[in-house]
């Protein structure tokens, strides 16, 4: 295991952070368990809009990821220990890569676990639907993590900026302004879910599975490259 990965893993697994993540991840599961047992259970499209898209992909997942990924570098920029890493002979990608991997390793179990249990209760153990929801949740974690790791290098207020992004961009504008939807991570995570189980989920936006996968790869790669570029050029405190 790389020294950077194990260091970051220890930095990101503080007890309180894990407790808060657990509470957040549990919310959609409890909500779903309660809703499906009620007499007026919603249709799939309503459930997808309210729980999967808005609650899980648009709020819980980015909140969990921003609170973990943005401090992968952010903590070390703040306490000025980043120089221990940048003054090593490692190529910069060997610093960014393990940092991102550690952020995903910490955030993904919460988000993917939450997505799995939520879809498990909602879709009556339908394996295809569960796989579609959990896979898209994992891909969403990858995209959000690459974005927020980069954000942690760009600003000392990464969590605050990330929250504004989640609330305004992913939560508000992308839900109501159709043009912005095509610049939203949530949108492509949902498109992936539609593509993986078209039988159950209806792709209203007509994005298509291929485009969703391509955009996910591009978003991930672009922010990884931006992080490497930033680490090479920044003045390390």
């Amino acid at each position: 295991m790389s020294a950077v990965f194990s260091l970051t893993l220890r930095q990101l697994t503080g007890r309180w952070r894990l407790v808060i993540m657990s509470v957040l991840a549990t919310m959609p599961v409890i909500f779903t368990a309660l809703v499906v047992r009620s007499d007026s259970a919603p249709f799939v499209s309503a459930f997808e809009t309210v729980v999967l898209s808005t609650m899980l992909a648009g709020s819980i997942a980015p909140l969990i990821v921003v609170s973990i990924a943005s401090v992968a570098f952010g903590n070390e920029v703040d306490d000025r220990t980043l120089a221990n890493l940048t003054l090593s002979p490692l190529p910069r990608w060997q610093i960014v890569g393990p940092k991102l991997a550690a952020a995903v390793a910490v955030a993904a179990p919460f988000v993917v676990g939450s997505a799995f249990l939520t879809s498990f209760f909602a879709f009556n153990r339908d394996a295809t639907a569960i796989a579609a929801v959990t896979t898209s949740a994992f891909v969403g974690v990858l995209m959000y993590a690459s974005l927020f790791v980069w954000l942690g290098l760009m600003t000392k207020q990464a969590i605050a900026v990330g929250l504004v992004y989640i609330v305004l961009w992913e939560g508000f504008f992308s839900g109501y302004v159709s043009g912005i939807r095509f610049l939203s991570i949530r949108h492509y995570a949902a498109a992936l879910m539609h593509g993986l189980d078209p039988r159950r989920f209806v792709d209203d936006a007509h994005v298509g599975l291929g485009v969703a996968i391509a955009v996910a790869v591009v978003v991930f790669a672009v922010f990884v490259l931006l992080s490497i570029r930033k680490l090479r050029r920044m003045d390390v405190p």
Partner: protein
Amino acid sequence: MIRVDGVSRWFGNVVAVSDVTFDVAPGVTGLLGPNGAGKTTLLRMMTGLADVSDGAVTMFGEPVRDNPPLYGRIGVMSEHETVYGFMKGREFVRMMGRLRGVSDLDAAVERAIELVGLEHAAHLPMGTYSRGMRQRMRLAGVLVHDPEVLILDEPLNGADPRQRVQFQDLLRRLAEGGRTILLSSHILEEVEQVADTVLLIVNGKLAASGGFRAIRAALDQRPYHVRVVADAPRELAAEVVRLPSVDAVNVDPDGALILLSRNVRDLQIELPRLAQRASIGLRRVEPLDDSLESVFGYLVEH
């Protein structure tokens, strides 16, 4: 070994380092200057942590900025004392060794910890260390890959007198092994103990450089202002002006004498004798400009 060539750095309209040029050769070189003189900014540029606004820094003939392979040959201890509080001392040194690709890691870790004399505390979390212990364990982390060049920014902060002596001995031994060591400090005596050569930075500029003896000699010729409060200032002024150690005498508005002396050592002996002979009581004798800034300021002007 290290070449700093016309290096400047500015932040907006503030010039932190201005057109500094020097070379650092093997041995211990002291980088001296008052707080805020630009030492840390200069060291950050010399280690590649910060970019230059103008000029170039090279080490072993290679640019230091964005040159990771070069970082395997240098050890840098920044002025910031933050450590990974959750990490035990030995774990920290081990991690530093792994990051730097040390081959015989176990032996290298134990050797580095032994060099700084912290074997007894290596199993404890660094969050429990005193300030001096943190600095020493950080130094062990810097030494674990046996670097050819050491750049140490105020490494003696928090060290007690015994630790200072041990640290200075360690630096001498490392220098004797052929390493190039650049040590920054704002305390003259701290650098004097170990450095063969001194670089003096004041207001972002290289004010002086050379052997420590030359710098010390320049300091000894510096005029000092000494304020004297006495029972009969005017009578004392008439007498004290005849002393060989006094260059000029003024009486300030509240009646105290301001003496200008280039030989404070003799003045310390002659003034009480004179006062006793003239039966004039001395109430207070104090240097007015003995701060480090004024010492450096004098060297810049001359």
